[in-house]
């Protein structure tokens, strides 16, 4: 192996973030020579492979790659959530079939021919839009995250729960969302001067509804029709959904049916009784819209088994509702020292950012952490800081630093550090 001059970057074996770049050339050459010397063929190289097909599927060896921690309210099957298997994914795009779900009354079976989006209220002209009509408008597409504001609620537990990264933090995903800027449609309807908010409601059986300030709507809201290049999946709002970059996921109303321009928020159930933040003084905050700066190490994490001591990649995702991730730091000594992680090339606004650090694990116990900073200067807080002043059980908008303890036997545990 070539001599590497990438020295330690922080305590307990964290290596310089350029480590993997330097290592790549040498290991690639070794792989090529091994293949050239191979005399026999494995079974899949002795017969022609499978034919083409109309729709692809993951390898049969990846059957475990599924959404996790699926739960629904008692007596229901569609009032709950499923989570993205973060620790089994790399990069920043969530495969559409693995995008997390949070539904309030199941997934409606909508006939796209019959579905209409009606925009009304304090507008000059109430208008109705079919899917076919919206498909003729100029669309824009952006790769952005969607996070349920109830994500990571398990981190409130008094003692750290031994669950996987996805079971704790899997209510976040990222996709390429394509659709029509809502501002374009509101330009067509006109907005009366008294209009300050919209109330968006879905075509699900619960007609889930949220109020959204008009300035956000005109800034970057879209009526999303596409997810990762194809029409929305039913579980993500087919045939159309509201998408509000960076804001709590519940507001990006799926199966969007009506938008009413109003002069004040409607104070719906999901913006008062739910998705409000009770403080320990009994006062609750309404309209805590943007998702805070956050990161989590997806590998290693609980449920992934470490092998022998040696070089490992510490990898994870970071995101913020405030724009771009500017920096992610990683610690391998419980937060005593930190080193900058390498960020993958695609650092986009209100999107997941993949970070990576090289770590020389000495086989001993270690606590690994990540801490994100965004372009607005927000730094991901510790768990203690997040919980300070909150009422017991107030779980929305948890963005505290996640710590994983790597044990000598290679197991990884959830710990509070």
């Amino acid at each position, binding site marked *: 192996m070539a001599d590497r001059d990438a020295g330690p970057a922080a305590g307990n074996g964290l290596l310089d973030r350029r480590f993997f770049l330097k290592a790549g050339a040498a290991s690639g050459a070794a792989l090529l020579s091994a293949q050239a010397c191979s005399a026999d063929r494995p079974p899949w190289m002795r017969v022609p492979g499978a034919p083409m097909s109309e729709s692809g599927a993951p390898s049969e060896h990846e059957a475990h790659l599924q959404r996790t921690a699926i739960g629904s*309210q*008692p*007596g229901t099957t569609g*009032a709950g959530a499923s989570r993205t298997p973060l620790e089994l994914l790399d990069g920043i795009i969530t495969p559409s079939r693995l995008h997390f779900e949070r539904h309030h*009354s199941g997934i409606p079976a909508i006939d796209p021919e019959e579905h209409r989006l*009606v*925009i*009304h*209220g304090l507008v000059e*002209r*109430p*208008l*109705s839009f*079919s899917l076919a*009509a919206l498909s*003729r*408008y100029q669309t824009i597409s952006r790769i952005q995250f969607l996070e349920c504001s109830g994500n990571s609620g398990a981190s409130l537990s008094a003692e750290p729960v031994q669950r996987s990264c996805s079971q704790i933090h899997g209510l976040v995903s990222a996709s390429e969302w394509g659709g029509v*800027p809502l*501002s*374009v449609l509101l*330009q067509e309807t006109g*907005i009366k001067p008294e*209009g*300050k908010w919209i*109330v968006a*409601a879905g075509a699900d059986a*619960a*007609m889930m*509804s949220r109020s959204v*300030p*008009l*300035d956000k709507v*005109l*800034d970057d809201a879209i009526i999303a029709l596409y997810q990762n290049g194809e029409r929305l999946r039913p579980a993500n709002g087919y045939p159309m959904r509201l998408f509000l970059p960076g804001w709590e996921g519940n507001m990006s109303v799926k199966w969007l*049916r*009506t938008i*009413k321009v*109003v002069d*004040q928020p*409607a*104070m*719906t*159930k999901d913006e*008062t*009784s739910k998705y*409000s*933040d*009770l403080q*320990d003084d*009994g*006062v*609750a*905050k*309404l*309209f*805590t*819209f943007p998702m805070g700066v956050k990161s989590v190490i997806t590998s290693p994490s609980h449920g992934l088994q470490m092998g022998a001591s040696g070089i490992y990649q510490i990898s994870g995702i970071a995101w913020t509702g405030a724009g771009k991730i500017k920096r992610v730091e990683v610690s391998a000594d419980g937060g005593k020292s930190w080193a900058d992680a390498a960020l993958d090339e695609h650092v986009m606004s209100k999107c997941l950012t993949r970070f990576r650090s090289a770590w020389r694990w000495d086989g001993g116990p270690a606590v690994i952490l990540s801490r994100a900073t965004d372009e607005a200067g927000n730094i991901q807080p510790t768990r203690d800081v997040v919980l300070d002043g909150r*009422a*017991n059980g*107030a779980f929305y908008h948890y963005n505290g630093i996640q710590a994983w303890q790597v044990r000598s036997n290679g197991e990884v545990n959830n710990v509070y550090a």
Partner: protein
Amino acid sequence: MFTRNAMAVSVLYLLTAQIVMADDNPQLGENVSQADLVVVDYTIMPNGEGLPDGSGTAAEGAKVYQDNCLACHGAGGKDGLNDVLVGGHGSLTTDRPQKTVGSYWPYATTLFDYVHRAMPYQAPGSLSDDDVYAVTAYILYLNDVVDENEQLDADTLPDVRMPNRDNFVWAYSPD
């Protein structure tokens, strides 16, 4: 607050309009009749705007509750499989906050709105507007917010003062 917001929105609107030229918009929205709007519009505002005709009392709502809500929410709005609707008064500053309709929800109109659009879970839309007023009154009565024979309708419901009304602050600033 709203005056300044109006200015901010106007500026944003102009900016947006510049980015997307009118020529780029195929203008395919179809006019919607008032009759069609009434069918799709379930929005109910805290000032009562959008509330339908009809009325009901807690006394009438008790039977609606027994028939439609009891299985999930329990007798008297407590001890059901799903959300507790009643009680928890004074619990919000304790170690075990209990957020019920009576202890937490700031607006009575929200209760009507939610039942009207989403309940009962297995058959939303199956209750008459009178039934929704009545069961709303019943849940508020169980929380000592209205009297048993107080009639709730589009005029009286917005005036119902919820006990926790003043304990909410806005984290969002329109400016």
